[in-house]
């Protein structure tokens, strides 16, 4: 296994106990833990540099602005974007709403279609539902195949002239599936549709290149990639950001405000209404720096190995069903499963008693849960700080669950 084990000491929370046992954190797909480097960067910002950005005509504000814009440049480079193509906001959800309200509300009309995948997170579904109420556009879904990958034949069939937007998750937070975003983008672009990529799971775990993907918009959250809560990123192609309308209005995003109407600041500030998440941007930049130091290839390799080990060991448990590809080459580290008739919530409680944190539920993907006929699953998800023995502990916990519930 790629040896990242010595990283664990960078994460102070891993020294905690949960229910009397050392914490084994297997819920990174929900939110990741933070290394000292990130916590300290935020702390240091507030102690030494805190001021509003782009506003003050004094040294402190200038320093804060420089650090904020340097954070933007670093985050943009991390996904191979230009700094002007990257706007900070509250998170993936908020970024996708910005696309729906900023682009969708102005460009969709009755008869138009928004083509989503059935494995989208609610964050890439509900904003389109809301905007379709105002525009009359229709939502259509690409199903998945029996092996939990996107049904590309169905996609091709559904991709007709009515489709104006294709929304796709780069990596499913339930199945782990990595979708062929470039292939989807090429097909979508051929009929003139835009591609909106939910990269909330992808950016933390694999090297993402917005140009290689040819994504029109792409969204991700800092808190899932070792960074702080309260900040996310919207990438948009420069020409799109320049021509589209901002969703939110307020200070700092204007060029001029008249009584009836306003003109907008240049990109990306047009998309950052009000005081941005400043300390959070500094924290996110520290997270990116930390990930770059490890190298995204090493991150990915580590996860491929530990996920492979987990799939092997979980797969060997009787009556355990894994929902997702079993081939680590096209999946990430989120492993969803059920065990016999034990409800996932009960599994989570039993594991919790052993200090093991897994998630149980629909994972904010109800349409997918329904299509899997599994309204709830348990999910273990891995990150750089997880080790093989975490998987072993998980398997032991599941054995205890079998005993408690008398599963043969």
């Amino acid at each position: 296994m790629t040896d990242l084990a010595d990283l664990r000491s960078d994460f102070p929370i891993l020294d905690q106990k949960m229910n009397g046992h050392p914490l084994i954190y297997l819920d990174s797909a929900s939110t990741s833990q933070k290394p000292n480097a990130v916590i300290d960067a935020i702390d240091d910002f507030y102690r030494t540099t805190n001021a509003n950005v782009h506003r003050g005509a004094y040294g402190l504000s200038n320093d804060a602005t420089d650090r904020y814009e340097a954070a933007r440049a670093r985050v943009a480079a991390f996904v191979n974007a230009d700094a002007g193509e990257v706007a900070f906001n509250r998170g993936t959800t908020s970024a996708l709403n910005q696309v729906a309200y900023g682009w969708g509300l102005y460009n969709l009309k009755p008869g138009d279609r928004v083509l989503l995948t059935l494995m989208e997170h609610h964050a890439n579904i509900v904003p389109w539902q809301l905007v379709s109420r105002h525009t009359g556009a229709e939502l259509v879904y690409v199903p998945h195949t029996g092996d939990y990958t996107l049904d590309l034949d169905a996609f091709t069939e559904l991709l007709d002239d009515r489709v104006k937007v294709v929304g796709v998750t780069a990596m499913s937070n339930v199945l782990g599936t990595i979708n062929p975003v470039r292939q989807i983008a090429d097909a979508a672009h051929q009929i003139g549709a835009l591609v909106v990529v939910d990269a909330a799971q992808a950016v933390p775990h694999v090297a993402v290149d917005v140009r290689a993907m040819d994504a029109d918009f792409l969204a991700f959250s800092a808190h899932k990639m070792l960074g702080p809560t309260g900040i996310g990123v919207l990438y948009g192609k420069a020409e799109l950001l320049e021509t589209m309308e901002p969703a939110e209005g307020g200070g700092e995003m204007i060029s001029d405000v008249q009584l009836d109407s306003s003109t907008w600041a240049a990109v990306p500030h047009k998309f950052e209404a009000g005081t941005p998440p400043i300390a959070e941007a500094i924290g996110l930049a520290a997270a990116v720096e930390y990930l770059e130091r490890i190298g995204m290839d090493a991150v990915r390799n580590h996860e491929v190995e530990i996920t492979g080990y987990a799939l092997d060991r979980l797969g060997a448990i009787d009556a355990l069903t894994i929902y997702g590809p079993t081939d680590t080459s096209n999946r990430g580290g989120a492993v969803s499963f059920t065990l016999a008739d034990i409800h996932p919530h009960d599994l989570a409680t039993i594991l919790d008693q052993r200090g093991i944190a897994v998630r149980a539920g629909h994972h904010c993907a109800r349409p997918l849960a329904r299509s899997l006929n599994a309204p709830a699953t348990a999910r273990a998800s891995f990150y750089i700080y997880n080790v093989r023995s975490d998987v072993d502990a998980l398997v032991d916990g599941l054995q205890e669950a079998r005993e408690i519930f008398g599963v043969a």
Partner: protein
Amino acid sequence: MSLNELYREVILDHYRAPRHHQHVDSPDGTAEGKNPLCGDEVTIEVKLDGDVVAAVGAIGVGCSISQASASMMAEAVDGKSRRQIDELIRKFKVMMTIEESDEQVVNTERPGAALGDLEALQGVRKFPVRIKCADLPWITLEQALEAAE
């Protein structure tokens, strides 16, 4: 906190073989309860004869605690009057909220007394995350009874 206290035999039994797990003919009151965060769902239907529950249905999907609670609750309220049910609800709530350490109150209220199988849910109290699972059918019952009025 021992898992054995949570997953007592009687709870697993009600989970696997839920009682009153069927619709009631032309119910006087129906309510759907949902715990959107963990996904537990339960529908309670009641048919009244005067102020007595003549039939009750408790249908749902969810974890062992929520579904066992629904099953045991249905058993407990079947055939009872509103006044008796109110007393049951009160007793159940007391049982679910009292701190074990708070011996004084525990003794006075004898948590679980007269709750029959439901006493098995006492263990849930020590698992705060799961209390809302146990509560769900009861809150839904109150709504169904209200709807029946």
